């Protein structure tokens, strides 16, 4: 990065637009590896896979742990393992390349520079992700860093780790439902209708909240907030205005369509059980 001809001490300008985006799977993977770490190990280290998006955001989509040994400031990484795993992963998804590495623990430690240097040889400007599995600050902190080299001429003096903004994308997790991922155990995956029921209950609760808020404002309990009012007006306006007749027709048509579907599927089922009965009867020939 900081290749320069001048002999002045150079602080390369931080790459401004760099940010990272982490998919929940990566966090899960890191936590799992941490739980399964060897007895004597203090932290786990691993490779991050993903891609760099056109706008410069580093999209971290996958990860795998790499065994390592750490003693008295020295870190020995199993490079062979790292390469084997990389080849295996690329067989499945060639689009995912190395984008950096992760380590558990809070912040950057001394050994990190060495490992970072190793990853710099694999990919230019790797991202270093730290996941504080020990909750040393009493909170789950996940941070991403890039490193810049401080160099004097051709001599490298030090590496500077700079924190970059991190976007924890949970949309995928949302689709699965946090309920599955937050709790320690769930006995059953809800069926279509149970899920629907939960969603509707939540919607109802939200509408109730809005009612309460509006009533409160009208009675003068809380001062009116224009922006909130505008949001409420927007959501009320999002219900299309139709004449009751047209609306009834629309609803009834759809209901009839659905009923027809139900009827069809029931008739198919009847047909199936009938066919089965006939088949067993035919077997008596």
């Amino acid at each position, binding site marked *: 990065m900081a290749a320069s001809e001048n002999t002045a001490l150079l602080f390369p300008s931080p790459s401004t637009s760099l940010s990272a985006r982490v*998919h929940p799977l990566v966090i899960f993977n890191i936590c799992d590896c941490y739980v399964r770490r060897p007895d004597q190990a203090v932290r786990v280290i691993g490779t991050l896979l993903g891609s760099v998006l056109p706008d410069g955001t580093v999209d971290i989509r996958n990860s795998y742990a790499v*065994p390592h040994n750490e003693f008295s400031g020295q870190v020995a990484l199993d490079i062979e393992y790292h390469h084997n795993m990389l080849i295996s992963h690329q067989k499945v998804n060639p689009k995912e390349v190395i984008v950096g590495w992760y380590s558990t623990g809070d912040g950057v430690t001394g050994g990190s520079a060495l490992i970072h240097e190793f990853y710099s040889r694999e990919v230019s400007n790797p991202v270093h992700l730290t996941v504080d599995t020990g909750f040393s600050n009493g909170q789950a902190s996940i941070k991403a860093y890039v490193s810049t080299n401080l160099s004097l001429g051709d001599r490298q003096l030090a590496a500077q780790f700079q924190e970059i903004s991190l976007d*924890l994308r949970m949309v995928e997790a949302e689709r699965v439902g946090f309920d599955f991922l937050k709790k320690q155990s769930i006995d059953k995956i809800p069926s279509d209708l149970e899920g629907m029921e939960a969603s509707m209950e939540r919607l109802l609760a939200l509408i109730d909240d809005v009612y309460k808020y509006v009533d409160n404002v009208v009675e003068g309990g809380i001062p009116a907030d224009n922006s909130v009012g505008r949001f409420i007006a927007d959501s009320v306006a999002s219900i299309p205005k139709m004449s009751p007749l047209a609306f009834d027709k629309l609803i009834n048509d759809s209901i009839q369509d659905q009923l027809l579907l139900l009827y069809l599927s029931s008739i198919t089922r009847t047909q199936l059980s009938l*066919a089965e009965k006939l*088949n067993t009867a035919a077997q008596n020939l």
Partner: protein
Amino acid sequence: MANPSAPRSFLQVAATEEVAPPLRVVQIEGLVILKIIKHCKEFSPTLVTGQLLGLDVGSVLEVTNCFPFPIREEDEEIEAEGANYQLEMMRCLREVNVDNNTVGWYQSTLFGRYQTVELIETFMNYQENIRRCVCIIYDPSRSNQGVLALKALKLSDSFMELYRNNNFTGEKLREKNLSWVDIFEEIPIKVSNSALISTFMTELEADSPVTQCDYDRLKLSSSPFVERNMEFLIECMDDLSAEQQKFQYYYRNVSRQQAQQQAWVQKRRSENMARKAAGEEPLPEEDPSNPIFKPLPEPSRLDSFLTTNQISNYCNQINGVAGQSFSRLYLMKALQEN
């Protein structure tokens, strides 16, 4: 055992295998769910598979990790490479202390079309090596509707026995009392997360009143999904009626053959009467060399069973979607009236 009081070696314990309790629950880690979803979604609509790793504990099968397979290609060299890949991956995962017992495999499906002969064959292959295995099926097409379409399946024991002997005649099926419902057994899924992950998720993501899942569920339009479903249903019905025709043809042939046999025996009897009257030895009443006594091969019922399974699956899906739509429509109605 010669000396029951002596401590038994591990080998002995392993040898005196008790009767395994039936598999009741598949306990699956959130990590595995995310991995499966990621793999299946990224390659959708191509169907992909992967291997499940975990532990078999009593009546619970714990799935604690998994890894994806590269997309299969019809080439022997690449196939050998695939086997290598699998071994390599297992070895690597073992090094970072992941459970490396294979407990089954996962695969993606579209609109729930998974009941195929290939699935059964893969299952039989796995079953040969592992006593207890399970197949997890994920349907990415349904996740757009806010449903987590994960299913854990296994083949029923009686079906496996029949399949091993490749015996799908009507008589055998009747003997075993096996109908199409009994081919696949669905096993309830439990989701578990380690305490660490659960803390992280709770910490990182506060309880939000609305999630993407809710939006997906409350979306009014479900017609593309239903349309595809109906198309497949119709296709399956055609298949089924073709199968039925095969059977009709078979039965017609059988009854024709029986009529022929009857006629032949009748003729032989009258001939024998005549011979008796003439004082000659009667001819035998059966002639194995005669082609009309050769039993006709009965077509296998496996295909029709699978198609029936498929159809009932579509019906269930349609019912589910229709049920959802009903609630949505009534919700809309209520909103409009308000």
